[in-house]
Structure formats: C-alpha cells, structure tokens
C-alpha cells in the first residue's frame, strides 16, 4: 500500500536525525546518571566506587540546596512577570502608528542581541556599582545613600538585568500577535460599549493568551539554566543569596571537583525542569488548541 510504503520511507528518512538527537541527548543523560551513582572526585583519583544514592543525599541535604531552589523560582517568576507585563505594555505602545516606527522597533529589539555576559557586566559596572554607577549618581543627586545593588539586593539586581535582556523577545512576540488582531473585532467591541480598558481585558488579552503562553514556555526553558549573568556579577553571593540550581551544580563540580555529586545535582535539576515542563505544556497545549 502506498501509505505504508511512504510511512516506512518517511521513518527511514527521519532516522538519521532521530538517531543523532537520541545520541545527543540520551548519552550525556545516561552518563550523568551513571556518574551520579558513583564516588567520582577529580582531586582523589582512587577509582570510582559505586555509592548508590549517597551523592543525592549529599546534594539534597546541602544547606544551600533549598535556597538555590527558591532562588531559581524567584528569578524565574520575577523575570517572567517583568517581561510579560512590560512586553504587553511595550507591544501596545509600539502597535500605535508613529514617526520613526522602524528605528524605534529596532532599538527596542536590540538588547536581545547583546551577549548575556556583556550586558551583565555593563549593568554591574556602569549602573549598579555603588561608587561609579549611574544609579548611585542618581541617588546622590537626590541626596540619598547609594545602594550597593549586588550586595544588598543580589537577586533583585539579577532579575532586573535578565529581564532587560529578555524584554525585547517578549515584546517582539507579543507585538506580532497584537498585529494579527482583527480590527473589526475591536470596532465591534467599541460599538458594543466597551471602553479602552474593557476592550483590552475582553478582546486584546484573550487574543494574546497564546503568545503569552509561548513567551512563558520559551523563557522558562532558558531561565531555569540561568548561569552566565550570575557568574560574572555576584558569583552566587553574598553567601549563597543569589545561587540558583545551575550555579550550585557549577560551584560543586568546579570548585570542589566533585563530579559525582554535581551529576546528582544535575539529575535533580532535570527532574525539576520536567515537572515544570509538564505544567507548562498543559498551559500551552490548552492555549494552542484554539
């Protein structure tokens, strides 16, 4: 039969890609799982004994573990809130006809092209520095005490930097969604007596729901593994105040050369990411059905 024949051909054609993907994902995952069950320390090359779940116990009982977990979600929630709300606001502004539309849109999008390490360093040294930073200068102009952002509010500072980098992405996606909204729907709502706010709540926001779900999903994937910004600014500190899960794994593997418990940490992160992913896929799936 033609269909089974094409089905077989299709599978054959797909197989190199699938095999590569499988290799690419399954092998590192299996190796991580393997290492996580062994005592594997780079500083003590004494043979890698099987230790069962000991690495997991060690990682999960780390005093920094729960804080890093909380930090991971605090960062995620903070950045998502700023980018989604700010993105909707900016998209609404940019959707209005104005002079120099092309230039303005380009400017709004540009932060997305700045490398995370570069933008984090710029924020750290030029804005948040308590002596030379712009924020400190502004505080002084108003006669206030300069805040040492990275020391006094490390998590908030990181949230701001990361949100700045992701805001253009959210704005862009939401703007395209906004432009696909049927003008007659807005006019119908206007004639039905809906004021601007009611039109936003009842027409625009439901129309944007799908785009918002996509923004949340994509950003979550990247934000769970947030690392570069932390490394170049706070180093997870002061103490562990700005350590997230990814950074905790790093500080354990590189700073302690303990591959075994770092792998266990990696597995924990994978499990958490998957739990979150299930919820997100539900959310997005429900929205994509329409």
């Amino acid at each position, binding site marked *: 039969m033609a269909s089974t024949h094409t089905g077989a051909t299709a599978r054959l054609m797909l197989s190199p890609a699938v095999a590569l993907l499988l290799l690419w994902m399954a092998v590192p995952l299996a190796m991580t799982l393997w290492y996580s069950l062994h005592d594997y320390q780079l500083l003590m090359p004494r043979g890698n004994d099987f230790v069962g779940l000991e690495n997991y116990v060690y990682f999960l009982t780390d005093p920094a573990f729960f804080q890093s977990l909380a930090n991971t979600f605090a960062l995620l929630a903070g950045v998502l809130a700023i980018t989604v709300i700010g993105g909707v606001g900016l998209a609404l502004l940019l959707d209005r006809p104005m002079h120099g539309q092309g230039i303005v849109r380009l400017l709004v999008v540009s932060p997305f092209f700045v490398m995370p390490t570069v933008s984090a360093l710029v924020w750290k040294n030029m804005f948040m520095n308590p002596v030379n930073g712009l924020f400190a200068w502004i505080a002084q102009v108003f006669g206030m005490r300069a805040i040492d952002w990275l020391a006094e509010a490390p998590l908030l500072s990181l949230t701001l930097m990361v949100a700045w980098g992701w805001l253009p992405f959210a704005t862009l996606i939401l703007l395209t969604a906004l432009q696909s909204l049927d003008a007659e729907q807005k006019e119908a709502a206007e*004639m039905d007596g809906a004021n601007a706010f009611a039109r936003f709540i009842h027409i625009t926001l439901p129309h944007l729901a799908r785009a918002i779900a996509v923004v949340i999903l994509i950003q979550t994937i990247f934000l769970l593994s947030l690392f570069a910004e932390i490394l170049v600014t706070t180093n997870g500190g002061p103490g562990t105040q700005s350590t997230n899960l990814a950074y905790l794994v790093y500080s354990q593997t590189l700073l302690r050369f303990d591959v075994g418990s770092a792998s266990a940490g990696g597995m924990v992160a994978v499990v958490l990411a998957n739990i979150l992913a299930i919820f997100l896929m539900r959310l997005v799936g429900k929205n994509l059905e329409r």
Partner: protein
Amino acid sequence: MASIALKNVSKSFGGREVIASLDLQIERGELVVFVGPSGCGKSTLLRLIAGLEDVSSGQLLIDGRDATQLPPAWRGLSMVFQSYALYPHMSVRDNIAFPLKMARRDKETIERKVTEAARVLNLQDYLDRKPRELSGGQRQRVAIGRAIVREPVAFLFDEPLSNLDAALRVNMRMEIAELHRQLGATTIYVTHDQTEAMTLADRIVVLNAGRVEQIGPPLELYRRPATLFVAGFIGSPRMNLLGGAAASRYGAATIGIRPEHLSLSTSEGRWHGKVSLAEHLGSDTFVHVDVAGLGTIAARAAGDLDVRHGETLWLTPDESCLHRFDAQGRALAA
C-alpha cells in the same frame, strides 16, 4: 427607533475624497439600502454613521440631535460587520451577552434577553459553542443576535451576506426582512448586490464613486432611473443601452430599453439579428440577439419559446418604456 439625517457629510482619506458632500434623510423604521459597485464608499459611509470614522465635514443627526462628535457607543447603533467580528474566545452566549455586560445590566436581564434573542434566531442549541464551531449562517445569526440584544435605535449591516453561499444568502435575506418586520427598527443595509437591494429595501441609495446617483423606492429606481449609471446597475438582466443613430432618432445620446420591453418576432420588427444565446430559465427565456451596428441586445420571451443559436429574430421596443439619457448620462424627461 430613530431617524438619521446626514447634512453635507463628506469624507477624505489623506486628501483623497471618498465621500463627496452628501445629504440623506432616513425615517424611523425605514430599511434603507446603500448599493453600488465595490470601492464606491458604501462601507465608509456606514462607518461614518457608526462613528468608526470621523466626518471630514458636515453633520450627522440622530433623532434630530447632533451626533457628529459622539463616540460610537453613545450613538445607540448596532452594527453587523462583513466578517461578523465575533469574539473567538467567547461562547455564543457570551458573544450575545457582551453588549449587555458592557452596559452593566443585571444577570437576570442578560439571561432573559440572550434566551429571547437565541429563540428568535434559532440558536438555542448552540449557545455553549465557540464561533469557530458554527457554520457561516449560524455565525451570521450570532452577529445579528449580538446586535439586537442592546435594542439599538438603528441597525447597520455591512454586506452581511457576502460570505454565505447562494442558497443560504436567499434564506438569510428573507430572515433579515422578517426580522425587520418584527422589530420595525430603522435599518441601514450595505450591499453591492442589486438583487439584495431590490428585495429588501424600502428605499435604495445608489452610490457611485462616492456620490449619490439616485435615492428612491426600488420600483421607482427600476421604472425611472435618473442616470445612466442607475439604469445599468439596477435590474437583472441589465437594461440594454444603445448609443449612436438608434439613440439620436429619439433625440438622446443614449437610450435604454429593458429586456421585458422588447417584443420578438420571426418575420418583422425594428432591429434584426442572429441569436447568440438563449437562456431557458423555465418561466422565462432570455434571448441575446447580435444586432449589426448595435451590439448584443437581451430580450425576455415566454418560457416555452423555442429558439436556437443562429436563428434570425426581429426586435421591436415598446416606445412608452424607452429611457432616454443626455450626453452627461442624465435622464431626459419622457
């Protein structure tokens, strides 16, 4: 119910005049149809009345009160859009209830009115569906339902049937006529289809390139077209328009004669030619005859007339039904 008056209303988009200064009086309970070819400004005129566009100059009166500067929601008009503009994420019930919710009516009133509208429009079984789960005709009804629940002073329809197939269009046309009889509300209906205009209207406004060609009841437009444009636009099949010597004989630049005002003969008459096409519709036969020097002329004959392609026929116009137009396309007095 309200009367609507346009006084010297005009509209330009960036210097290009789309509606030239226009006067129109629409009486209470009247069904007025704006008809004209695509791009002639029908939608723009309707949107001016709705308040979705601002007039460039002139005045709009609703029930004698100046409404030129009123925002759309305050004019008390309901509009049914060509695309229906249903809210896709809301159920049929919520779509119909939306104007009432916006007007902050209480729950019982909303429920009662939505149920009543659903009954009138035969939508009871679909109230919990989303618009995308409905057929074109049902969507159309939901859009009408949303328009009637707020009990507007007038209804505005913008080509409401153009997205439906031919059979459904005839049905919905009758339903809209029936609805207008029931509600007795002032209605403005926009279409490019002269059949729709003829069957629905109390009065027709024929528009051409942003100008009013003629205003009047359907039969008056049919019997006494004021311009060449109206003569050619109203009536199906079209009126035969002849220029040259045939027209100057009657002291006109162009003469028009409708197919039903030509008598046919196989032996004698004014003009003769070969039959190029005979459309047998059952009740009538429309015969297209190629007359040398005049072009193709359509004539109506009895349904049982047996003519074939290539036969020679003679045509004679009923001179009392002849329309005469001057060089500017204006009708000359009979």
